[in-house]
């Protein structure tokens, strides 16, 4: 004897006979949203999992649900799934969404940079007992340099800056949009537009 319903079987049954459930039509959409959103936000979701979700739902429903995620959630997810991508951390939100969808479709994440050969470690000197202050810099404290290695065969196949990030114009880069959560400007009446004046028309009368 069953002790609990089979949730998946019930959901399938609702989907197959929606006319039997007219009172919950809008709740079904909300529930579907919530379920997929939870799956996308799961810490265990990896690239294969994301692709499986896309395969199951199709690209457009997934894109609609990704659009409903908060910008910060999309950024967290896409930087986790493509953690070595050089441009994701600073890209606009629209680029994060596009890149996430591209990853879900087929795009491979950027490979990790080839490990730098570590300089041979000098045998650790015993800490001088509260010696005089150090003057010479430590040998491995050189300023960090951009890696200059030749790309490996593997990394050469990876897009360094996929079009989804590098070429996406932020639709509103120049607009006076305060970042979410930023304090309101001190002057409530401050407005460039309301202070702006149109130029004089060529034949404008006094």
């Amino acid at each position: 004897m069953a002790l609990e319903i089979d949730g998946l079987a019930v959901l399938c049954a609702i989907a197959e006979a929606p006319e039997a459930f007219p009172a919950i039509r809008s709740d079904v959409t909300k529930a579907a949203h919530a379920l997929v959103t939870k799956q996308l936000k799961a810490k265990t979701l990896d690239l294969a999992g994301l692709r499986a979700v896309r395969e199951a739902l199709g690209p457009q429903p997934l894109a609609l649900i990704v659009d409903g995620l908060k910008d910060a959630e999309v950024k967290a997810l896409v930087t986790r799934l493509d953690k070595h991508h050089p441009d994701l951390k600073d890209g606009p939100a629209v680029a994060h969404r596009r890149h996430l969808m591209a990853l879900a479709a087929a795009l491979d994440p950027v490979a990790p940079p080839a490990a730098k050969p570590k300089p041979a470690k000098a045998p650790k000197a015993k800490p001088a007992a509260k010696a005089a202050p150090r003057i010479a810099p430590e040998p491995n404290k050189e300023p960090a340099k951009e890696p200059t290695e030749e790309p490996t065969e593997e990394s050469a196949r990876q897009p360094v800056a996929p079009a989804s990030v590098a070429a996406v114009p932020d639709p509103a880069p120049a607009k006076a949009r305060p970042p979410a959560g930023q304090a309101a400007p001190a002057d409530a009446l401050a407005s460039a537009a309301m202070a702006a004046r149109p130029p004089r028309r060529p034949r404008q009368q006094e």
Partner: protein
Amino acid sequence: MTGKLVAVANMKGGVGKTTSVVMLADALAAGGASVLVIDLDPQASASVCFAGDGILAEMITGGRTLDYYLGLRIVDRDKASLPDFIRDYVSSTTHLGEPLPISLIASGPSLRIVEREIIYALTKRNYSMHAIEGHLWKLFQEDFAPLRDQYDYVLFDCAPGISPMTEVAIRASDLVVVACIADFLSTYGLKAFYETIWGVGSASESMLAPKRPPHVLITRWQNTKQQATTYATLQQSAAAEDARFRLFKTRVPQSAALANALTLEYQTFANKYRDASRDLIGEVITPVVAELREALDGA
């Protein structure tokens, strides 16, 4: 392409005209239509909602707003092409990774002064009031109406108080959506608005009566006793045989999500109209757009 001209209007202020315009423009564009918003209000609320303060300032100082165009065309009798005043892809909202295809003819605070200048200039040229109306009507038909060939929808955000240009847009549109709160003062204002535009003797030789009766969209809906009573009265009147207006079945609720949608804080259409407590897209926006399309298809 033969696009539809839709005016969102009411003589009363603060009833949600701009909110309705922003919501409709976003929804129609997210559905794949090309949308042009023409801001007829000197408060420039729709302009700032779409363009943001910085870009609007740039448009004003660059002489790329509606008031500058009207000054050139009517007051100074200079040549000016209205399409040059359109800013395409002005919205910062995206849908499925693409910016919404919304264009804007912005207004600025000077629109109020230019509309006064128009009256002075045409009166000086011995135009009667009817002739002034006729002049604006002709300009509208020559310059604004052809924009329907480029866009699926042209939405006019009308100024409260009915300026001359607003009146022309209302009379010439395919559909007038009257944003209205279901309370005593707003419905009282609705009567005045109806009498002004659709009432007996309101049309003239210079300007025609609107093509269709007004379609009232209830905004800022709250399920209070007073609003419910007012709404029931409106429903009854709209269902009467000699009904003078139509009523959208869907009501737009008073909602924090909708107020947030007027800011530039949210990037995606889905995020703009959905918060923890409400899914406005499914509950409100989709049915309103369906009703709008149905009304226009009958127009």
